[in-house]
């Protein structure tokens, strides 16, 4: 797709606040199941979209064709749609806060591209590694997925930029059989920001992940069921990330707060242990570029970090222009759209609970009877902050020591109550890049955190 169109040329057609966005999403997938190739695909979907704000109503239009005439028609249709809505209902002439952000970024590979043969060979090599080194595996799958999102934006405020974000992930699933002949499964993803060539330049890191996964699978093979009920637990760092995103993060998105989330009642209050600080980072933490770096959002706002919880106090929410106006506060640069044909919504970027000072071993040693839980499968939360996460496995903790493995379960509770029970945070920060948030539109998100000691309800018989 042509991505070097000068969008400013169309500004004379803007009659009210307008965003003009040129975007293409490019994806690749290669999959192997038990050594057989089951997918080998690519796709590219791009086009132009215009969003126009008129007296409190939005008009949106889009099209894949990129001729001058087509772009003009897209602007005219969006303008017409906004005018239709603003004429049909009494509008108060709401005005959005101006934003003149600028930002360019490009996370495409720096070296030459690998051929399809080379990518397939890389996956095949990993598959052979599993066959050679994981003798008890009865079934295996490897699925590579790569996504590049290229966006060029220009708004009637004069904001604009050209950003290319990329990420590459390989999902590994291993299955063995327990003593009763029943399948026992464990899966994990490895990957990060960047294109395949940069992320998977060396197979040794993926092979190390396979080794760890296999060892855990052997532990899980004859795992016990966890005892249902409230327990002292250590949530591994990957669970802290999804806790930050799913259970707390969503309740503090401006549109969800506006719609009645419980977090709206708690601003300025103690909602967590004083150990807990939680931030939605725009793009960088401690000098490190994060999994989903956002420099300029899709409303032309320069992205800023949002401190959601600081030392246990609920400090702020994430906003787009409309919710910032509603709450009479500043925009934060959280408006993001997935495809060219999607409108920007309030979305998280890289949401994390910040690490503490404890050592993981000390945290485990501090529990007489509980669980160390890891490897989440999925998660859901509610505006009440009630959450549920699927957990693939864990270990019993007895008298401060890890015991038997425990099998798949779910953990649940009220997130703001769980945070008040946080008594230790490990000193390591682990970022997860494989998150795909599903709030109306799918969208890549980053999540991070340390291991967390707290209390949680564990499901089961």
């Amino acid at each position, binding site marked *: 797709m042509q991505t070097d169109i000068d969008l400013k040329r169309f500004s004379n057609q803007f009659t009210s606040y307008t965003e003009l966005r040129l975007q293409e999403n490019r994806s690749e997938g290669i999959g192997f199941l038990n050594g*057989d190739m089951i997918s*080998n695909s*690519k796709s590219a979907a791009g086009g132009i979209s215009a969003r126009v704000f008129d007296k409190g109503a*939005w008009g949106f239009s889009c099209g894949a064709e990129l001729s001058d005439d087509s772009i003009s028609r897209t602007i005219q249709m969006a303008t017409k749609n906004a005018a239709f809505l603003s004429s049909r209902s009494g509008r108060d002439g709401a005005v959005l806060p101006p934003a003149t952000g600028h930002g360019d970024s490009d996370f495409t590979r720096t070296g030459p591209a690998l051929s*399809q043969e080379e990518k397939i060979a890389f996956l095949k090599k990993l598959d052979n590694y599993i066959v050679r080194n994981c003798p008890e595996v009865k079934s295996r799958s490897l699925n590579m997925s790569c996504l590049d999102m290229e966006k060029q934006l220009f708004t009637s405020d004069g904001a604009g930029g050209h950003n290319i974000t990329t990420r590459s992930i390989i999902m590994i699933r291993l299955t063995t059989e327990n003593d009763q002949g029943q399948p026992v499964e464990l899966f994990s993803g490895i990957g990060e920001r960047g294109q395949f060539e940069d992320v998977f330049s060396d197979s040794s890191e993926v092979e190390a992940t396979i080794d760890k996964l296999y060892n855990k699978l052997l532990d899980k093979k004859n795992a016990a069921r966890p005892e249902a*009920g409230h327990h002292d637990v250590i949530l591994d760092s990957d669970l802290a990330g999804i806790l930050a995103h799913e259970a707390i993060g969503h309740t503090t998105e401006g549109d969800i707060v506006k719609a009645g989330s419980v977090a709206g009642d708690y601003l300025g209050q103690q909602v967590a242990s004083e150990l807990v600080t939680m931030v939605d980072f725009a793009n960088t933490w401690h000098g490190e570029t994060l999994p989903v770096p956002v420099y300029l959002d899709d409303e032309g706002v320069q992205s800023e970090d949002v401190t959601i919880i600081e030392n246990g106090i609920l400090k702020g929410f994430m906003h787009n222009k409309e919710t910032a106006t509603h709450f009479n506060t500043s925009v934060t640069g959280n408006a993001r759209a997935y495809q060219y044909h999607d409108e920007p919504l309030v979305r998280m970027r890289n949401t994390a609970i910040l690490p503490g000072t404890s050592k993981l071993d000390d945290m485990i040693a501090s529990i007489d009877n509980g669980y160390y839980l890891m490897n989440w499968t999925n998660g859901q939360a509610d505006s009440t902050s009630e959450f549920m996460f699927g957990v693939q496995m864990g270990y019993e903790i007895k008298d401060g020591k890890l015991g038997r493995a425990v099998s*798949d379960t779910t953990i649940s509770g009220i997130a703001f109550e769980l945070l008040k029970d946080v008594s230790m945070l490990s000193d390591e920060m682990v970022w997860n890049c494989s998150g795909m948030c599903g709030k109306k539109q799918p969208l890549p998100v980053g999540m991070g955190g340390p291991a967390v000691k707290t209390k949680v309800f564990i*499901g089961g018989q």
Partner: protein
Amino acid sequence: MGVRETSAQVLDRMRASGYDKAYCNVADQELHELQSEDGDIKLMRTAFETDVSMTGIIEHKRGSIGINTTDRGSVDDALESLRQMTNAAQPDEANDIAEHTPAAQFTSGPSEPDYDAMYDRIMELQEHVATNYPTVNLRSTSITFGKTSTSRVNSNGVDLLEEQGAYSVSVQFSAKDGEATSSMNYTGYSTHVLDVPIAQKNDVDQLIAQSVEQMHTKNIPGKFTGDLIVSPHCLSTFTGFLMGKISDSAMIDGTSIYRGQLKELVADPSLTIRCCPLSDNLTAGYHTYGTGFVAQDTTVVENGLLQTFMLSQFGANKLGMARAVNGGGCTIIEPGDSSLEDMIKNVAEGIFINRFSGGRPNDQGEFSGIAKNSYYIKDGEIQFPIRETTISGNLAASLKNITAISRERLNSGASNVPWVQIRGITAS
């Protein structure tokens, strides 16, 4: 140029490129949408989209590519990329495309949106809620009219054209009064005509009314094993496990507990599940799918007996079994002989579940998760809306532990299913 001409041109170029087998699908889609947020119609969207999908097979090696433009340069680039992908692929004799079928055209639904009706139906719902449920916030309501023309052609002579039009309606809501907040709930349906108020479709009014009650939830008295009455809104959690495990991935990798269970009892004899994309009662149906197949209705489970696996052509070839005669979805479950009211009366202790937030079940079907927007039942009566209640059990066993199926069903346009009573679920 229409979708048929475009797909034919692309297929000709694929043939000329030397593919043993080639498939092309071109779809033009028009979307017209009104979105309401927090009780205010906020966005009107018009979108024109085109999808071009190409699959090529050479010497049993397969590649697929999708683009959304039809200009010659873009198609040439895509074909070049597809050639590289296909050459690099691993051969598998299971790779194939749909066999020849007579050319056919199918048309369903309206071809133009009725913007006035779209606008009026949303406004009507907002007024209904503001009048009757002042504590309810209609967080998001949308009506989308979609019109799609899809041409499927392949090198076996398949030439299918399908034109579909339908409205999709979705409603998301919660209630809040002071600091009392209900759990969020949502529902949606598909329809060819906006002739009925949204509140009167797919249980919308009942679910909104329940949100008001659900601002004040209670914990269940204690852990128990009892009955679950599963509403149509979350029945797919239970039937979905079976449908997933009789499909490609679990069947091919051998982890499906239903392998070898054809014609065996996999559910209580009262349960009959059909996949009916051709049903006149389902507006979200379809006539064509995959690499150029014409869909047929099928019975998946009849009187508890598994009648078919839901394998794709690849999966069927891989396993030497029959492929499914449609692409899945469009679930119809036959009604039972109990009234929903009687089902509730027959529960000594249990949960009436409207929404399930659960973890991924393991391969045996063991599951646990939270019963959302749900109620505690004791001595045949619904007692109160519940909070922080986990239910657990085994999904495969649950289908065998069905004790009643309601006469009443809910038709969302995408499915038509009843309320189902299951024994032996643990709540804690």
